[in-house]
């Protein structure tokens, strides 16, 4: 929607690629997925990897605490003014999909306060396999599952696994301990997602978040092209 073409003043909606002053806004990437799959750990790793080359900020959506935001603050992955927590009223998926207004405010306030920004990561509160981000809030979404949640999750599918722009199968280091079959998870994911990319990752491993960071860089290059 481009309502501002007929009205003056601040933008009415903010899926627009430009800010009220005409500059391009930051690329917004959402991270969703089940509780404890490694969303915050991935956000933290991405911040460490990208903060020297990009201007970054993070929005967290905790379900009933500020723990994710506080974890990121404690780890000092970004200065505190670049991290905002949104409260979601017992319904994390509502705040990222059905009623995105609080999250939109958070991303806009971050751009006003510490911008210009290249990239804003929006972490959803841990939810179920049907939780996806609205296209009005993010430009791309990452769905994070882990090997410990059961190796049949890729086969079960659901909107997160099937439609996310990137699927991360996290904690591959734990696969031998929980009896998860990585090859099968990869094959099932491929079957569900056709051409959409899948990354198998262990943040405890040597390459850590590198592959996901490369994917983010590519999205950013496409966004600013």
């Amino acid at each position, binding site marked *: 929607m481009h*309502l501002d073409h007929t009205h003056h003043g601040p933008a009415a909606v903010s899926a627009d690629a430009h800010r009220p002053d005409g500059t391009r806004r930051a690329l917004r990437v959402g991270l969703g997925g089940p509780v404890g799959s490694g969303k915050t750990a991935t956000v933290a790793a991405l911040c460490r990897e990208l903060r020297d080359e990009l201007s970054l900020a993070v929005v967290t959506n905790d379900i009933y605490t500020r723990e994710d935001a506080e974890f990121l603050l404690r780890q000092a992955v970004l200065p505190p003014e670049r991290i905002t927590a949104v409260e979601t009223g017992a319904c994390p998926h509502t705040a990222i999909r059905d009623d995105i*207004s609080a999250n939109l405010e958070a991303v806009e306030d971050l751009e006003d306060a510490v911008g210009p920004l290249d990239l804003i990561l929006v972490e959803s509160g841990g939810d179920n396999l049907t939780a996806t981000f609205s296209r009005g809030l993010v430009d791309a979404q990452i769905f994070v599952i882990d090997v410990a949640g059961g190796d049949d999750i890729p086969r079960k599918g659901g909107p997160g696994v099937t439609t996310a722009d990137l699927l991360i199968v996290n904690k591959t280091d734990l696969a031998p301990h929980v009896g998860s079959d990585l090859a099968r998870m990869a094959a099932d994911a491929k079957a569900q997602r056709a051409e959409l990319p899948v990354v198998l990752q262990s943040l405890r491993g040597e390459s850590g978040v590198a592959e996901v960071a490369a994917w983010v860089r590519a999205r950013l290059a496409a966004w600013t092209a």
Partner: protein
Amino acid sequence: MTHAALLVLADGRFPAGGHAHSGGAEAAVKAGRITCAADLEDFCRGRLHTAGLVAGALAAAAALGLDPRELDAAADARTPSPALRLAARRLGRQLLRAARASWPCAELDELARWFPKGAHQPVVLGLTARAAGLGAPDAAYCALYESVSGPATATVRLLSLDPFDATGVLARLAPELDEVARAAVEAAGAAAGEGPQALPAASGPLLEIMAEAHAAWPARLFAS
């Protein structure tokens, strides 16, 4: 002009941020004041005649075209708790975004310029009703219904209360809501002649006090 716009605006799924707020119910549940549907009904009745009446009158006055800056100041004066003021402004800002996308007009654009961080939600609600071609009673009804439906849905989540019981509470309150709506519209009419001081200033002290305590909790499900 269409009266069906009222359904759009009053729909609980209208994306204006209300789902993250409990209208004081979370604090009341934790304090043991709401444990069942009967308690919920008492709580909602209290809200209806205090915070609800004030919100309804503010919304009706805004729908009549009173100066939103004066109404916003009047709302501040009627909201002792800083936490509740902040929540009301946040919700006002969120509602304004949805309103401008739904019923774009110069008056709403102007409001966004005056209040970049948000005006009190009932004031925005009244102007939204106006932009949608609705009248002062419609605005009052929306504000009043929200003042009780918010706590009711929140309590379903907080207590795992039977959703049919919660809806029954709202249905039983409907005739009373009619009466309070009439009073709110009447007060708004008086304010159109005499200024915002004619608006009601009823308040539930416990709601304000508990809101301050709630805002300081380290872990909570709802933003207010």
